[in-house]
């Protein structure tokens, strides 16, 4: 083959590729076939029971690195028990008719810490009296789940909505199990209903409240996160998350494409999984830029959001809800606790 022949054939190939490129470049029809109407609520009040999953970042990271890094199995790591706390929030929903409903989101990590937190906020009594009969487990991470005994000891029949992407170890712990190396245990078997949420369906919990599972890979071998969507009358969509591993903008994008009135984002509460270890990256600037485009009116964040992101986002003009001094009434505070009240922390509340 000479150069002329090669050019001729590659020219034909190039034309074919260009035609393919044109077809690739055609607009994609990605609109959802039908948007889901989840109804409306009057208001949502969130109480931060505990957002201090651990108290010292450096100790947590050392445990994780010594145990095999971010992809290791969380049950195979020797965690420092003294450093563990937990993540949990109380969600109080006011329906359009004025009736109220309470939901517990997550159950923390260290059982003695969560017992203390629940007692301090009266959650133990709410569980005993069945005022709380529903718990939404956002995901199977240690700091959201391993304190399950603190919930079950007061109400073992509680209904739990959890991601269906669990491992045998998770089920063992739920039904009463112990992991010596990881230092977690549960002596009260769950007797209530376990609703396993999958990524294909939206679970309508009650009018105006829905759960959507996002099947994303997460550190420490965990997969999938449940996100709570609320539609607050005359305000718009509110997302409530444990860690928001799928990304806050992906949550907003899902609402816009799949929920009725989903384009009206009002705000968010929860961990946003950004600067949890006080590091920065140019891609976090992308998030600030993207969030501004959605124009949320109230961003109540904490936990794995990281105070660094909260401060930078607030400085960029995003409506980050400031925290108060209530965290000082807790018996233990995080080593990175900020007196600048960068975000909502233990004991704070936010109303949507």
């Amino acid at each position, binding site marked *: 083959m000479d150069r002329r022949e090669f050019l001729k054939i590659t020219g034909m190939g190039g034309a074919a590729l260009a035609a393919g490129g044109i077809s690739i470049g055609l607009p994609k029809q990605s609109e959802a076939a039908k948007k889901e109407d989840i109804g409306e609520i009057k208001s949502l009040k969130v109480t931060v029971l505990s957002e201090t999953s651990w108290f010292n970042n450096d100790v947590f990271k050392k445990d994780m690195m010594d145990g095999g890094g971010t992809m290791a199995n969380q049950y195979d790591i020797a965690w420092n028990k003294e450093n563990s706390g937990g993540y949990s929030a109380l969600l109080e929903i006011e329906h359009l008719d004025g009736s109220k409903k309470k939901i517990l989101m997550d159950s923390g990590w260290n059982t003695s810490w969560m017992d203390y937190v629940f007692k301090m906020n009266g959650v133990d009594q709410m569980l005993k009296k069945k005022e709380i009969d529903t718990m939404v487990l956002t995901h199977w991470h240690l700091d959201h789940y391993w304190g399950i005994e603190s919930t079950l000891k007061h109400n073992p029949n509680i209904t739990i909505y959890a991601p269906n992407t669990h491992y045998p170890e998770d089920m063992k712990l739920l039904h009463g199990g112990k992991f010596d190396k990881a230092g977690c245990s549960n002596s009260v078997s769950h007797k209530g209903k376990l609703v396993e949420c999958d990524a294909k369906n939206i679970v309508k919990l009650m009018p105006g409240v829905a759960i959507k599972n996002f099947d994303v890979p997460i550190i420490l071998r965990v997969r999938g996160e449940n996100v709570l969507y609320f539609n607050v009358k005359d305000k718009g969509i509110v997302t409530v998350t444990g860690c928001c591993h799928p990304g806050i903008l992906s949550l907003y994008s899902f609402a816009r494409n799949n929920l009725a009135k989903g384009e009206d984002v009002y705000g968010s509460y929860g961990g946003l999984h950004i600067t949890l*270890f006080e590091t920065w990256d*140019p891609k976090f600037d992308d998030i600030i830029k*993207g969030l501004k485009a959605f124009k949320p009116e109230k961003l109540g964040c904490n936990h794995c959001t990281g105070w660094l992101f909260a401060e930078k986002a607030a400085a960029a003009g995003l409506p980050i809800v400031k925290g108060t001094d209530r965290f000082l009434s807790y018996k233990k505070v995080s080593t990175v606790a900020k007196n600048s009240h960068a975000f909502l922390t233990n004991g704070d509340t936010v109303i949507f």
Partner: protein
Amino acid sequence: MVAQTSIKTNYLLGIATFIGLSAINIAAWFLFFNPKGIMRLYTPMYGFSMVVILLAMVITVAELFDCWPLRRKAGEKIPPLRGILLTGITLILTWAVMFGLFHNLIGKFGITYFSPSAIVATGETGTEIFNARENSSTALIYLFAAYIWIAVGWKTSFKGWPWIGDNLATAGFSRLMTVSLFSVLAYTVLFHPHVGYLFSPPPKLAAVAPWWESLADTGSAYYHLGWVVCAVAILIMSKSIWEGYPWRIVFREEGSLAGGIFTFLGSAVTGFVMMLVMKKGMVMFWGAPFVGGQYLDAPYFRYLHAAEMAGFLILATYIISIYLGNLLSGSNLMVRIMVRTAAVVIIATLLMWFYYAAGPLFLGTVPGIAQPEDTPLCWSFFMISFVLMHRHFFNAAPIKSLP
């Protein structure tokens, strides 16, 4: 009939050899990087930086120095014992460059972010040892990605020029200096702004904000990593399975300044176009990404994933050219190129399938695509390093048919 049998035997031997090498690679991965293994260094950036530097050193010894000092003349066969010595030299170089040159010399006496302990010593926000190690590793990954691109680009584009006729040592050191110079230039412009903005507050007098943000919809330098690795894939495919085309259309002579510039710039442009085509494909598959999106929705992930796919294409190209004898030697050039390219795409797809489907079992990775703590580039570069060491240091033994 005899010829057919011989070819069949070579294919089987090639496949068996590659599987054997893969087994050694997976055992080494278990020892050093597997999150369920022994040393568990894939944190991920720390282990990834070791792999990128290892690959850079393999390319330095094998391509820039042509295996000098254990090979005296170009084309000389290397006995197995010398192959072991070359492997040892490469590993020592990897260790010396990472820990000696960067962690303890440049990092401590020049540019802070190349040394974890120097970062910690600043006492700035978030500068504890884990973050520091990951950040300095990120800088090393980018620097040596640029080095790999320039080194492969230089050797493939300029060939022997301008040291044709010089001995291996003279040519090797000359290439090393040239490649290092252009690598630093490429790193400074394409990657350093990202590394600077890994810190808070960013060192504004030492690093500009990522200048490509409005072009790429992200400030992440994965944008550049994407097209750079694609450009490397183009160069390697051109050299290994396209018989020097399409660059040979214009410049046929063995090594020249004009031919080198044409090939290098042409491969860079082609690599960029390849990344854009891959990005279009991802839009069809996953929908459009958006600014601030994470996981599959993240623009930076789409660029990284283009690099990841290019990494599998590079590995597949080496499998075809080294272990399967480039498949065809007769017939029409265009047929040969098309068959080999199709085979490379198929094998690259199988490798991707292996990584994502069997990775959790064999490599200890987490199931799923776009896990922020995992990039298939780490394993594919690790495997490419093994393939290149096997090819250049051990003459791809026991395969006999290799030139």
